[in-house]
């Protein structure tokens, strides 16, 4: 995509950049007119969300970003449904702090609940206003009016009025009231349909779709020189010779932050490589490494939080007590696209194009980190590879901003290397989970105790106060203070997400120990603590079922009072042909796992069928899942999220562990951090139970935990070996 000088224009003090590409065209959509209060884009204004545009278009601005999860398509479906316009009329804008609603982060699999609800209300209100305008124009009451693809009907007959004749290019000048009458679900024609994603054709035809496809005139290239792990100070670097290397524009050093800018990308790569060879980094004393981390977590200084405690007046007769301890190592987000960003500083205002998950929080953090006022910074989301949580995207955005501010008027494209990403991105925290349960004489669970040890799952740079979480802010000469340790409270929870079993158990006691200082940088990874907690609970449920001589499905069903949960399990039992499960110890294993995500979102049950060879190799044959996510906006979108979640969780569970020693992260590329390869991926079948009477629920993170447990349970079934620490490798299968 070529952008010419002519296409740079200045709008309202912000440098706007215009693109020829249809896909990225909306990355520069101009700000709507201010709402009634003069505030340009408060979430309360209808105009912030919806614009009736020329060419028969309706432009919807939401605050949730796309990273392949299909959110923009689902939101477009909701908007078209509520407005009664054809789906093809809807255009979704990118999230841009110069006009988009502020919906904080796109995370936690809650976009549909949050943004879906807001878009629905804004569109319902817009429709009412348009109907009133039509009624005034036609001198009728709204009672007999309806809408078909934006045309106003009176008594079912088309009138001359339509959305565009009534309001094209103009403002609604209205707020979205708290209560709006929305469309009845029985009248839905679009919601519930497997509509194809809006973004896919451009991606398969290689039209500009991604941040890396933005090429601005005069753009220069930046690369970083990073320590072998985060948090090490730069003691010495020889920058002199670097400045005279071909194409090098400058070397930027601020404390331990080190970057090179060059005319061509490879020149920046070469310069960064040469510069790296002159660097001396501080070494650290760290008693942990990837082998002892799960034990260390239990001894580290921590803040303790009671998660839940429920006791029963009837003291049950416990005849058998079992206990076990599970763990997972540090995991990397490991996007196929290393983090990158584009930034432009015009001397007064800073524009940053980023693939991070929250443009408003990022704006505040960058402003603080580089000493600007928030209104001098504009952040625009543009897609890149999937992020799966808080990876290096926000850091790269700030890095690009710092580089751009040293070169006014010239756009800077900053690309992290593969190794920058592995060694710099915040990892999913290592976790240890212990469980203990008492069984009564009927083989029912009388009591359950669970203890979780983990680092934090939340160090996002959320606004100015979170700026200290940015790598640049930590590395610069005058580092910003680290924000205080954050414990995400229940009901969603962080390390303790899904740590409370959903089963009917008279006595439950769950405690979280949040380790104060982790040896490696950590933050949110898809599903946070739910992966390790569900892995532990659902592995332990199988261990308890075995002790009670019960079938895994039967055992769980006997401890469930939630009908929707039981329905999902019963369905999966049939679907997976569970009654024909092979004999245990045959080398072929079938295992299952179940969870209600966060104990308040989608119900997901997974069966894994696999083979364990004599040498302990594990071959996944098949994954089968049944999901109840309430009202489903786009069933194919839900299916894709569950499929992808299962495959990614198979990878985490069988292969992944960030290896490190005190001085360095050793997992720094795909050869040292292998993930599931194509031949290792199982067949995946997903069935969605339609629960249209219930609220819509997020699914993006729902499959991670159940899949992990299903694998462990299948391995135990195949060969009798219970592996409680992921990754479940042939070594561990053979060790016992």
């Amino acid at each position, binding site marked *: 995509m070529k952008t010419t000088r002519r296409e740079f224009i200045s709008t309202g003090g912000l440098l706007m950049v215009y693109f020829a590409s249809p896909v990225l065209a909306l990355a520069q959509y101009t700000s709507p007119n201010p709402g009634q209060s003069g505030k340009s884009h408060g979430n309360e204004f209808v105009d912030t969300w919806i614009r009736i545009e020329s060419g028969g278009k309706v432009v919807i601005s939401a605050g949730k970003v796309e990273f*392949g999860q299909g959110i923009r398509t689902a939101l477009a479906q909701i908007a078209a449904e509520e407005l009664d316009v054809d789906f093809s009329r809807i255009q979704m804008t990118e999230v841009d702090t110069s006009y988009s609603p502020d919906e904080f982060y796109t995370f936690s699999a809650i976009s549909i609940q949050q943004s879906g609800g807001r878009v629905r209300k804004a569109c319902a209100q817009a429709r009412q206003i348009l109907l009133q305008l039509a009624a005034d124009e036609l001198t009728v009451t709204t009672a007999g009016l309806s809408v078909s693809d934006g045309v106003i009907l009176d008594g079912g007959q088309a009138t001359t009025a339509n959305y565009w004749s009534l309001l094209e290019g103009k403002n609604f000048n209205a707020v979205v009231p708290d209560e709006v009458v929305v469309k009845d679900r029985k009248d839905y024609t679009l919601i519930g349909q497997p509509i194809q994603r809006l973004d896919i054709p451009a991606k398969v035809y290689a039209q500009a779709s*991604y941040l*890396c496809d933005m090429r601005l005139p005069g753009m220069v290239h930046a690369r970083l020189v990073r320590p072998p792990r985060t948090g090490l100070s730069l003691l010495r670097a020889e920058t002199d010779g670097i400045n005279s290397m071909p194409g090098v524009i400058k070397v930027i050093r601020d404390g331990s932050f080190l970057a090179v800018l060059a005319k061509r990308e*490879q020149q920046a790569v070469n310069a960064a490589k040469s510069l790296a060879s002159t660097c001396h980094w501080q070494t650290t004393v760290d008693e942990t490494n990837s082998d002892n981390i799960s034990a260390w977590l239990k001894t580290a200084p921590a803040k303790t939080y009671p998660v839940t405690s429920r006791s029963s007046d009837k003291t049950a007769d416990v005849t058998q007590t079992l206990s076990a301890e599970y763990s997972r190592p540090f995991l990397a987000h490991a996007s196929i696209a290393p983090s990158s960003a584009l930034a432009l500083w015009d001397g007064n205002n800073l524009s940053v194009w980023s693939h991070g998950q929250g443009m408003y929080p990022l704006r505040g953090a960058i402003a603080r980190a580089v000493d600007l006022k928030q209104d001098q910074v504009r952040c625009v989301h543009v897609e890149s590879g*999937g992020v799966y949580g808080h990876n290096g995207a926000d850091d790269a955005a700030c890095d690009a901003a710092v580089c751009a501010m040293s070169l006014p008027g010239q756009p800077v494209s900053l690309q992290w290397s593969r190794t920058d990403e592995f060694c710099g991105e915040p990892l999913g925290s290592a976790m240890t989970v212990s469980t203990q349960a008492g069984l009564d004489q009927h083989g029912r669970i009388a009591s359950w105790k669970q203890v979780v040890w983990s680092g934090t799952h939340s160090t996002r740079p959320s606004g100015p106060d979170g700026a200290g979480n940015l790598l640049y802010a930590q590395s610069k000469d005058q580092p910003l203070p680290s924000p205080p340790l954050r414990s995400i409270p229940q009901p969603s929870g962080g390390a303790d997400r899904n740590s409370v079993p959903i089963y009917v158990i008279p006595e439950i006691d769950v405690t979280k120990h949040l380790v104060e200082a982790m040896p490696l940088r950590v933050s949110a990874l898809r599903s946070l603590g739910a992966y390790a907690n569900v892995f532990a609970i659902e592995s332990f449920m199988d261990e308890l079922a075995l002790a009670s001589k019960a079938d895994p499905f039967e055992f769980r069903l006997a401890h469930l009072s939630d009908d929707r949960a039981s329905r999902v399990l019963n369905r999966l039992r049939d679907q997976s042909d569970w009654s024909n499960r092979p004999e245990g110890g045959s080398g072929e294993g079938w295992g299952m796992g179940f969870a209600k995500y966060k104990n308040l979102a989608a119900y997901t049950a997974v069966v894994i069928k696999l083979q364990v060879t004599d040498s302990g190799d594990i071959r996944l044959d098949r994954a089968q899942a049944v999901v109840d996510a309430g009202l489903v906006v786009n069933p194919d979108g839900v299916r894709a999220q569950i499929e992808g979640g299962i495959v990614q969780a198979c990878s985490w569970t069988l292969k992944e562990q960030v290896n490190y020693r005190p001085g360095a992260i050793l997992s720094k590329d795909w050869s040292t951090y292998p993930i599931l390869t194509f031949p290792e991926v199982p067949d995946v079948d997903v069935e969605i139970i339609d629960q249209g009477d219930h609220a819509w629920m997020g699914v993006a993170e729902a499959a991670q935990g159940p899949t992990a447990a299903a694998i462990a349970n299948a391995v135990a079934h195949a060969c009798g070996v219970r592996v409680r620490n992921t990754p479940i490798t042939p070594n561990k299968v053979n060790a016992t």
Partner: protein
Amino acid sequence: MTIDFTVNGKSVSLNIDPETPLLEVLRNDLELNGPKFGCGLAQCGACSVLLEGRSTRTCVTPVSAVNGMKITTLEGLGNEDHPHPLQLAFIEEQALQCGYCVNSMIISAAALLQSNPNPGNDEIKQALAGNLCRCGAQPRILRAIKRAAAASGGNGS
């Protein structure tokens, strides 16, 4: 040094440092979007193109190595008006999440279908063993490739 080659049927002549990675030339000089930077280490496949019909990793290929050769990128395989069967099949099967790997998958599949117009599941999986997808779209990608093979009447197209 002047390097001449053909990209998507067009002749290109560049005066350039011969060590420049082909990926940079395609993306930054020729402004093609298909090949992507993923690792720069020949480990993921994101940067793949067809070089004389063979799937090749451009992040580790110096531009000098392609002098006189023919390159096809994802945009050269087809476009909205004249789509390649694989492109249509990827849309039909909605065979991507973030799609950052889609170039890698389609290019390698195109090379496979050239030599083996009617591959079985295992042959497809093996052919794509070095092409990474982090989103877990592989089950859909597999279906899309089979659909494309069938649509081409098993003659690869």
